[in-house]
């Protein structure tokens, strides 16, 4: 953790001391991401929703960064995407409201998204929850990248 930019190295015999950790993580991280999407799309029926799913999805990237190093994580999820992702989420949410305005209803009145007001509500909730997911995921990853990339000034002996 002292130098997170550096890829976790191998020992002097060329072996990877963290092989077990990495194998398990490779297996686990897709499952965590999958669970995030379950939470996202099951939010209408059980506990969950965009915010919880976003945090879990971000946690999968953070776990990847902790195990494979921040540089690898930045290759997998480039920082450039983050700024666009943050914006995209807000636009998805606000844009849904603007579409409602254009269709003649109030801001965020989803009823006019479909001919049936209940179906319209369902579409609207789906769209805004997606916006929440995108923003929360990217912001959480952004914050982790920002803290992780900063060079620490205290040495490990201070512990």
């Amino acid at each position, binding site marked *: 953790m002292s130098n997170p930019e550096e890829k976790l190295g191998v020992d002097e015999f060329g072996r990877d001391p963290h092989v077990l950790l990495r194998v398990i993580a490779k297996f686990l991280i897709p499952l965590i991401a999958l669970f995030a999407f379950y939470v996202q799309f099951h939010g209408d*029926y059980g506990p969950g929703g965009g915010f919880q799913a976003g945090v879990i999805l971000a946690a999968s990237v953070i776990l990847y960064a902790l195990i494979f190093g921040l540089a690898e994580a930045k290759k997998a999820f480039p920082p450039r995407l983050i700024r666009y992702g943050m914006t995209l989420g807000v636009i998805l949410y606000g844009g849904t409201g603007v579409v409602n305005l254009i269709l003649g209803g109030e801001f965020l009145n989803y009823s006019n998204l479909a001919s*049936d007001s209940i179906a319209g509500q369902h579409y609207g909730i789906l769209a805004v929850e997606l916006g929440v997911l995108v923003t929360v995921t990217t912001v959480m990853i952004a*914050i982790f990248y920002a*803290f992780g990339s*900063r060079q620490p*000034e205290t040495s490990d002996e201070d512990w």
Partner: protein
Amino acid sequence: MSDLFLQYNYIIVIILMMTGLYIVFASRNLIKKLAGLSVFQTSVFLLYITIGKVSGGQPPILIEDKGYGADKDGHALLEGTIQTAAGGASYILPGPGSDVLYSNPLPHVLILTAIVVGVATLSIGLALTVRIREVYRTIEEDEIEAADFVYNLEGTAD
């Protein structure tokens, strides 16, 4: 005296809130202050959620009526159900004839929002702490104030 027992939750929550507030006010370390703020805010969440609790209630996730007209304990549910539009499910609602009770969903919604606001504040506070540590070499408020005091006397550099 027995009245107070029915409100024991509020008493505990107030103690917790004030403990959090005390950590913020009494400590002079920037990170500890933020931890205290977090405890304070989490305790306020507890206040809201305890307001919305209904005894004997269940989480506000509507139970679908499978069309048997009664739940597994044999209670008649007809009065309390709502039949929705064609193809839709019908839900068991509280009301006369129904013994289902849900807890109040509104405080839950408010607190979901507040949790997000709390983590946003925390992350900005931590980012500021990191920057302060870099430029002042300390995260103890007393030392920061001492350093600023010197500058205030000197005036700003030309």
